């Protein structure tokens, strides 16, 4: 893969919180432009820390992060306008209503007030949140908060959307709306970077995946290569699903285990 085709390049990323606790340990990954990229790993593998560094919410101990071909920089407003984030704890001004929040974010992202209002109305309708009227976001359910966060992340039509566990703790309808949005965005040329524990969804949704384990990427491949990619490096050479590949990659355990009494 050449560098020009990568929208996000992370090289040798290290994050040490306390001596001896390396949350990220030499992680390198390149996210192809226009892909739906699945960033998967166990809890504590370093996914969220990596995303927080990409978002500028945390600083790396070592390594480089390049977004749109430039080093990340808190003063680079164009870089911020080109991205949208849905973090594990949705970020919002919880005293605002959904409509107020989306209009606020839209305006801050540089949209004309009229455009921000139109897109806000459209997004609220799409996510079935129009009926919430003036209720503050703080009173919303987890699924509704995730939907509002996603709506805010895409209202300015960014080139890259980063989502940390967008499908966690939400019902099937909300999950469906979120997946529909991501597919729609990717079809429109937006790059989607997503972490999720729901491996079935990642396999169906993503065009490329990276498996993170102990703070580093141990495998990166296209999803259509999953069945053969690990040839020679794992006990099995072919896999029926991403879940099998994932389990074998991070645990070294094979899929054919059995309990003697079951």
């Amino acid at each position, binding site marked *: 893969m050449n560098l020009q085709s990568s929208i996000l390049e992370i090289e040798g990323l290290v994050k040490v919180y306390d001596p001896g606790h390396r949350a990220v340990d030499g992680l390198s990954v390149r996210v192809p432009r226009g892909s739906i990229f699945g960033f998967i790993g166990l809890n504590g593998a370093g996914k969220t820390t990596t995303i927080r560094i990409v978002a500028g919410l945390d600083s790396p101990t070592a390594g480089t992060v390049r977004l749109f071909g430039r080093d990340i920089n808190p003063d680079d407003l164009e870089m911020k*306008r080109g991205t949208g984030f849905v973090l594990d704890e949705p970020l*919002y001004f*919880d005293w605002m209503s959904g409509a107020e929040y989306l209009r606020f974010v839209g305006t801050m992202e540089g949209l004309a007030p009229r455009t921000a209002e139109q897109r806000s109305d459209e997004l609220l309708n799409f996510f079935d949140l129009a009926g919430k009227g003036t209720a503050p976001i703080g009173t919303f359910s987890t699924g509704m908060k995730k939907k509002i966060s996603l709506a805010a992340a895409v209202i300015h039509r960014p080139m890259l959307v980063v989502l940390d566990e967008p499908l966690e703790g939400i019902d099937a309808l909300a999950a469906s709306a979120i997946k529909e949005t991501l597919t729609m965005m990717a079809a429109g040329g937006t790059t989607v970077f997503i972490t999720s524990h729901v491996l079935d969804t990642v396999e169906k949704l993503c065009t490329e995946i990276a498996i993170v384990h102990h703070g580093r990427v141990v495998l990166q491949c296209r999803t259509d290569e999953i069945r053969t990619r690990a040839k020679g490096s794992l006990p099995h050479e072919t896999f029926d699903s991403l879940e099998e590949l994932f389990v074998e990659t991070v645990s070294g355990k094979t899929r054919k285990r059995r309990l003697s009494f079951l």
Partner: protein
Amino acid sequence: MFLADLRQCFSLRRLPVYAVFAAAGIILVVQRGGIPPLIVVWIITLAALEFQFNNILYHTPAELEALTLLPVRWEGIIGAKNLATITASILTGIGMAATILFFSPYAPGGAACLDAALFFWSVIFPLLIIGNLRSVQEARKDVGRTGNALIQAAGMAILVIFCALPYVVLTVLAGSRIGTFLLGAAAAYSWMRWSVPHTAGRAKHLLTTQ
């Protein structure tokens, strides 16, 4: 940003703090003598708005992170928030005055109103400068608890009285209103030229240096 900050200042969860301070103001003004009623109104108002001065980056626990993601210059964010604070102080002051003075045995005249305006002018910019510094040095994420807000507000009342010392010396003791005005103007200049850029510079790196 200005309107959003002003809006949160008057959200429902703030009302209990305002109500408690309005009650305290009423108790103070019905006792004859002592501090002029309009000055009491300002002290009560500024104390009730403590969070607006001293914790500008955490009106909700995730606000600093949310602001960090927005493509807006920090100087603009801090400036807008401070201007919202000035506006909120004036609007809250008017509301507090209407409530508190209803119970006051005094009817303030024109000179009292002028002195009250001068008092506000003399303290508002020093309070903003101190508040901006505290916001980046002692940012508090535990926002929204009325009990904590009341304790912080009581400390703010003492700070307001401290910041009013130049007003007391120049206007009350020396009778120099122009001196108080010029001192307030100097504080305003210092806020604009030093406090806002300095706070913006610190806020930008606050998350990554914590």
